[in-house]
């Protein structure tokens, strides 16, 4: 039985219960979301109590995270505002090293007395575990930054936008979808604000205010006669931006192949909902795919998930080393492949970077959750594996002296560990548009938006679906397909990468809820790319008759 099973929230509809609440989040009233609750100096005083307590008990390192995690969910379906939920989670997590062993404890009692008790528990846990420690923790050095702060550069704070405006916007999108022939539409506005205060025994006191926004919907078309139902999700991306993402500016709209409209740095939810209904209707009568080898043209709203699963996860050093062996798994990118300096991860045009600073991305912060300044670095350079994603207690294992700054915890109540940075495919260097790319494909499929996904525990074999599939014949889009999924092997797939559109087509997509760890934690991460072509990939037909 999981801890979250004990948390029953009041007043939740079934829709709200399916939302990804972080542990211990509780519903709160709207005004509380804008109340700062505790100032930086109060947090510093509490952090110092923890630092002094653990030091006196023998800890050689301590960090304290006093975190306040705010969420707002506005949930609607068709003409109904189903629920408006504001949640808050406030507490402190304390991590220590005693006898070379980690210990962690957390509590929502954020008082001098509560912090002291939690600090004592963290030390006691480290001591209990140190009996079975065979590999003492070695932390890479990091500078002390003193008292510093950072905030996501938002233009409009979504929490300050009246709830009525959000409800009205979602209901307008729903109405547009229904007008264009949808049978059902569920829509949601999901806002996140992480107010994170970090202090360490090494002298850093870091205050960060992180914002994320995600408008989303799912449009359903039901064909009772044939018993089919089809879904089209929103072409929005979850973003590390404020409510300005909902401005839907004309300059951020892109006319894609097949008559579709795509979005860049802002999003028009009403327009997209209308298109979604029309496309979902077309899916019902679309041609079922003939299985076989196809050249795939993958749009950034689709390719991000393939990058996430097949590049992001296997380049995480904790997976390579075996720390995730019992759950998410290990990685085929073993140290010998990296050491060889000639492991052909992909074709020569494949350049993939990790970046914790990219503006507008979900992972962007100035400092990670163990006080390391964030940066950008290469993972795959000209097709070759050149580095991993690693944090303070791991980099010594690969002979490096500096953490990559990608340590994260989803909440004050969870221990921080290595999490994926934004991992992105760099655009092609030659001028190329998606239309030009398609013109060169003889037998292919153009895939838009992420759908079904599955990959093995070492990240070799994967299968991905999508949302929209267009058949390409002799350089032209012929019509819509359905029942499409492609299967490949990571190295084979990235070596089949034949073309990447240029930077004009580069866009970010991503997820709020990348899962990893035990107990499981969520991480928000973006992945950028331009449209890319992969030759001769195996496509299967997923239609079944029951």
């Amino acid at each position, binding site marked *: *039985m*999981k*801890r979250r099973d004990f948390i*029953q*929230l009041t*007043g939740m509809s*079934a829709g709200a219960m399916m939302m990804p609440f972080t*542990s*211990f989040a509780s519903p*709160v*009233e*709207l005004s509380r979301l804008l109340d700062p609750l505790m100032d930086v100096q109060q947090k510093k005083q509490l952090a110092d109590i923890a630092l002094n307590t653990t030091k006196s008990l023998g800890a050689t390192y301590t960090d304290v995270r006093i975190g306040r995690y705010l969420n707002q969910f506005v949930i609607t379906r068709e003409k109904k*505002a189903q629920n408006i939920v504001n949640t808050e989670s406030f507490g402190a997590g304390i991590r220590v090293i005693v006898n070379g*062993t*980690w210990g962690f*404890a*957390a*509590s929502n009692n954020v008082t001098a007395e509560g912090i002291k008790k939690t600090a004592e528990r963290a030390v006691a*846990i*480290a001591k209990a*575990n140190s*009996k*079975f*420690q*065979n590999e003492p923790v070695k932390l890479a050095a990091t500078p002390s930054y003193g008292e510093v702060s950072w905030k996501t550069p938002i233009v409009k704070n979504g929490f300050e936008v009246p709830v009525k405006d959000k*409800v009205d916007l979602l209901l307008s999108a729903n109405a547009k979808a229904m007008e264009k022939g949808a*049978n*059902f539409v569920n829509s949601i506005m999901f806002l996140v604000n992480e107010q994170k205060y970090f202090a360490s025994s090494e002298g850093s006191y870091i205050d960060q205010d992180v914002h994320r926004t995600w408008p989303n919907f799912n449009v359903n078309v*039901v064909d*009772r*006669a044939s*018993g089919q*139902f089809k*879904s089209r999700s929103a072409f929005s991306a979850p973003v590390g931006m404020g409510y300005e993402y909902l401005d839907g500016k004309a300059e951020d709209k892109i006319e894609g192949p097949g008559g579709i409209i795509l979005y860049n740095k802002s999003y028009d939810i009403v327009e997209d909902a209308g298109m979604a209904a029309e496309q979902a209707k077309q899916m019902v009568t679309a041609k079922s795919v003939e299985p076989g080898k196809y050249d795939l043209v993958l749009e950034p709203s689709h390719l991000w998930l393939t990058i996430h699963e097949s590049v992001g996860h296997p380049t995480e050093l904790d997976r390579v*080393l*075996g*720390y*995730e*062996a*019992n759950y998410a*798994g*290990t990685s*085929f990118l073993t140290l010998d492949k990296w050491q060889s300096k000639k492991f052909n991860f992909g074709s020569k045009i494949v350049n993939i970077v990790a970046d914790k600073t990219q503006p507008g991305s979900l992972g962007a912060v100035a400092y990670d959750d163990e006080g390391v300044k964030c940066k950008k670095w290469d993972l795959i350079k000209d097709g070759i594996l050149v580095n991993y994603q690693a944090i303070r207690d791991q980099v010594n294992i690969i002979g490096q002296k500096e953490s990559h700054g990608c340590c994260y915890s989803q909440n004050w*109540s969870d*221990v921080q560990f290595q999490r994926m940075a934004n991992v992105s495919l760099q655009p092609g260097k030659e001028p190329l548009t998606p239309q030009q790319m398609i013109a060169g494909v003889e037998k292919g499929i153009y895939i838009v938006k992420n759908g*079904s996904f*599955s990959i*093995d*525990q*070492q990240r*070799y*074999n994967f*299968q991905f679906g999508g949302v929209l599939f267009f058949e390409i014949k002799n350089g032209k889009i012929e019509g819509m397909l359905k029942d499409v*999924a492609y*299967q490949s092997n990571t190295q084979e797939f990235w070596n089949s990468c034949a073309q990447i559109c240029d930077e004009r087509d580069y866009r970010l997509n991503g997820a709020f809820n990348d899962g990893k760890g035990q107990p499981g934690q969520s991480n928000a991460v973006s992945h950028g790319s331009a449209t890319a072509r992969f030759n001769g990939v195996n496509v*299967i037909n*997923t*239609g079944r*008759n*029951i």
Partner: protein
Amino acid sequence: MAILSKDEAQQILKKVIGFSKADGIQANLNGNDGGNIRYARNSVSTSGEDSNVGLGVQSYYGKKSGTATINEFDDASLEKVVKRSEELAQLAPENPEFMEPLGPQTYGGESKTWSEQTAKITPEYRAQAAANSIGPASKKEVTAAGFLEDNRGFNAMMNSKGLFAYNKATGVDFTVTMRTNDGTGSGWAARTNNDVSKINTADASAVAIEKALSSRNAKALEPGKYTVVLEAAAAADLVRLMLNMNARQADEGRSFYSKKGGGTKLGEKIVDERVNIYTDPWHDEVPSSPWAGDGQARKRMDLIKNGVVSNLFYDRYWASQKNVAPVPFGGNTIMQGGTASIEDMIKDTKRGVLVTRFWYIRPVDPQTLLYTGLTRDSTFYIENGKIKHPIKNFRFNESPIIMLNNLETLGKQERAVTSEGNPNGLIPSMKIRDFTFSSLSDAI
């Protein structure tokens, strides 16, 4: 503070209800204490404890409701939280689907979900669980990675219509993966229970070591349709996928349980007649809370009876629209088993595959409940009634509905563990014909 007794919870909730000036009020009081230990590379990696208690209050005026929460319990704080929820309710938009709280319910006595043994787990116990894996692994050129998590918590609710419900529960989950140091073999074992005295971390670790050693140097087998013997964990992984039996989605035509032409599959035979699945909060082995989140009493109820859909879950709103009694989601799942052991099923198989667990199962088509995923941590080829050799992992594309129509044999029930979380249930091992493996994976 985190675990309040029934009387303590009732006392606080009575005060809360007493402060109400709205048309009605409902209050939920919950608390939880938990701890965990995680290890990898034959060494403890992280470990922690956490504690939380909170009160949520929902007030309503007509169909307008507001919710506020607090974690302080003096009289002034309780009054404040009620007042806040009333202010919010007055500002809220009307929710046409709002249902007034339920009146008093009968739950049939104390549940069986609490274990004093589990509630008393200490950091030392957790560290010993890690040692039970790490010690034996190191002696056999094997590397252990594992996780143990325990919880004790309570839920209580009361409303102005006279309903009061309370339950406390404990739980412990243990999983361990053993990998041979040469990287060619891997084995997994998992245990879950309300009562920690019923799980043995040393035995589970030994099972995982044995699997790791016997799965070394796997050979490739052509993908295709095979007869499979599914250990209980693998069977549970797929059976759980057919149990989101939501009546509203089915009525709306957007579920596997929707019927072509309109209506639902309630009363239709969808799988082999030997398939019987039910829920029962009073089951000795897999007890659950006797009340669901909205306060409705849970009772023993068939979901699939002799292969036929016997019930769909109706929330109170949807039940009121359809003029039927509401049916709350169950707190556990029990699938009837047979008497065959894994060895018996292997003995009866001419050519097939033994699957010990699956991994990374994701939906492909919700209309047919088609899922894809892979085998993981020990898969074997069966020939002429014997395990011939370990084989490389497969990707499958299969629907649990097709699978349970191709049922050959039901094995013995086991406490259900799955690859991504442990459902509270009992699921048998089983033998299935024509299971679809679509490609090979090099992953170990």
